[in-house]
């Protein structure tokens, strides 16, 4: 990854009729970066990707790739290539012709073309399948063909629209690792759209989280998880217990807060929050709460409650704990480590939390 910006998007807005699909999008991507656009269905991810590719015009703002303004450059002239969600494998062509489709326009010799096609197929581990018919490919092979077909064009930026969502879980996890490796090897900028937070977190250098047409936060996966900018983002990236709190004091980087149920705690100020105030929201990840039949030792605050539900997830167990004065049950995730913890619904339990586990999510009702 270099420090050079390859894509610069400033103030872009896209409307469909009166509906704003993407509003005031600002984003810079570095050369060689693996960037993911993450968000729920309909938030505008695909629209944003298609604007970069040149398939979608827009009302405001500008997009630059490699410093060049893209305004009048049609999709077929842009230094980008795309892997479509449906893969868009040409059904009337075989694998070789699919991958070689775009090379035809480059005026290469037959030999060169054949070489580049087979090189691209090697890259995605489909070497030798040139003459296979499109209809004879499995889902994972189709995905690879689509990837090879785009990569063979040696684009500056590879755009991927939910490239793995059509694959089953096992294959998807394999491909996640492989694609990440390929991207690091080639050093090409990847921009991937996904609605799966695990996929985004395990593959990307940086993630942009979108809601309802707005890019809410752009950050590294760990930061996104540890310092989400608001309730929406926090909930989208993994489980989260939300609690109301009041700020009682401020000290450099920390805030003294009085958290519903738990009482006084000291939290790190979250630089990403969009607005701060006295009445704030804090979040605690389910896996960062301690649960026990007795009051556990060494925590900064405690809360008593009753187990209302238990959900077994295999590698972890989720306990739903109802506590007096709190509307929602608190969720506690306990790793399935020898089943050392085992509570039944109706049992009274103690919860413990440390200051470092409490996340400042900024002013309530923003």
């Amino acid at each position: 990854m270099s420090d050079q910006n390859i894509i610069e998007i400033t103030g872009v807005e896209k409307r469909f009729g009166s509906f704003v699909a993407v509003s005031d999008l600002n984003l810079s991507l570095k050369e060689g970066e693996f960037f993911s656009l993450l968000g729920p269905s309909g938030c505008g991810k695909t629209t944003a990707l298609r604007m970069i590719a040149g398939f979608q015009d827009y009302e405001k703002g500008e997009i630059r790739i490699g410093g060049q303004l893209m305004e009048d450059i049609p999709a077929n002239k842009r230094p980008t290539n795309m892997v479509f969600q449906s893969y868009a494998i040409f059904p009337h062509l075989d694998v070789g012709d699919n991958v070689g489709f775009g090379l035809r326009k480059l005026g290469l010799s037959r030999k060169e073309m054949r070489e580049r096609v087979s090189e691209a197929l090697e890259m995605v581990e489909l070497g030798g399948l040139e003459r296979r018919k499109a209809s004879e490919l499995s889902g994972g092979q189709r995905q690879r063909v689509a990837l090879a077909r785009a990569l063979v064009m040696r684009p500056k930026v590879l755009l991927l629209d939910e490239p793995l969502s059509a694959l089953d879980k096992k294959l998807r996890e394999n491909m996640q690792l492989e694609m990440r490796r390929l991207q690091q090897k080639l050093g090409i900028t990847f921009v991937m759209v996904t609605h799966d937070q695990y996929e985004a977190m395990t593959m990307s250098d940086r993630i942009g989280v979108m809601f309802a047409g707005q890019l809410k936060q752009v950050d590294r996966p760990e930061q996104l998880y540890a310092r989400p900018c608001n309730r929406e983002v926090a909930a989208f990236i993994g489980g989260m217990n939300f609690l109301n709190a009041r700020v009682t004091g401020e000290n450099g980087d920390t805030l003294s807060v009085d958290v519903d149920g738990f009482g006084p705690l000291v939290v790190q100020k979250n630089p990403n929050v969009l607005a701060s105030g006295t009445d704030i929201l804090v979040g605690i990840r389910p896996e960062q709460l301690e649960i026990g039949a007795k009051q556990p030792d060494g925590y900064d605050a405690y809360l008593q409650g009753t187990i209302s539900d238990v959900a077994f997830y295999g590698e972890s167990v989720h306990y739903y704990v109802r506590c007096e004065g709190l509307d929602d049950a608190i969720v506690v995730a306990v790793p399935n480590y020898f089943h050392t913890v085992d509570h039944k619904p109706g049992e009274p339990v103690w919860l413990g939390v440390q200051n470092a586990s409490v996340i400042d999510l900024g002013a309530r009702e923003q």
Partner: protein
Amino acid sequence: MTAVARIPWLLIYATAYLIFLYLPVLLLPLFSFNDGTIVAFPIKGFTLKWYAQLGEQETLLNAMVNSLIVGSVTALAATSLGLFAARAYVRYRFAGRELSEGLVMLPLVIPGIIVASSMLVLFISIGLKPSLTTVILGHTFVALPFAVSIMKSAFDDFDQSLEEAAYDLGETVVGTFRRVTLPIVAPGIVSSLLVTFTVSFDEFVLAFFLSGNQPTLPVYIWSQIRFPAKLPNTLALGSLLLMSSVILLLIAEYFRRRSTKSTS
């Protein structure tokens, strides 16, 4: 678990219905071998002379050539118009789309005699004499709804990201159409060509009003079935047409199967 044997009423009905459909059609060949000019039972005897005479019937052959010309041009014109329109309807959302779609379907529901008489008036008033050209114009009009609906279903199944993929890979708009769109919707185009050709080939009312001194086959047949001496020739021709269309269809089916076998 065994399925209870039920009487296949629907299958019986379907078979009876097929007989209903085929009965009149199969009488044509039957009477084309009848040795007599009055087409009525009982059958007088077997002869091949009506077939043998076909070759000499110059006007009949001319009428057939006219119909072939009109049918082909109509099929091409209606399918091209339908191809673009259907693509627009399936791909793009635009003001007036529904209006335009409704309008294009209108020829299906205007009584033939009204279309025919008013077109005749129109063409004459703009100085276009009745001719094969006017018949083609009229037939393209009535065939268009068929072309549009066939092409629409072809484009419905067509994944538009295929075109974007081609464009994305550097192809031009025209190149994309040629290298991707056309080959993929080709079966739809073929079936639209076939259907619109058939519509034109069998159309009578418009052709009757709009043809000049070059009658199409139905117009010729119309003048023939009213004069008994030529009727058996016409029946012979009708039987040949039926047979060739069946053969054509079987060939088309053969190729269709071969191509689906290789793609699935």
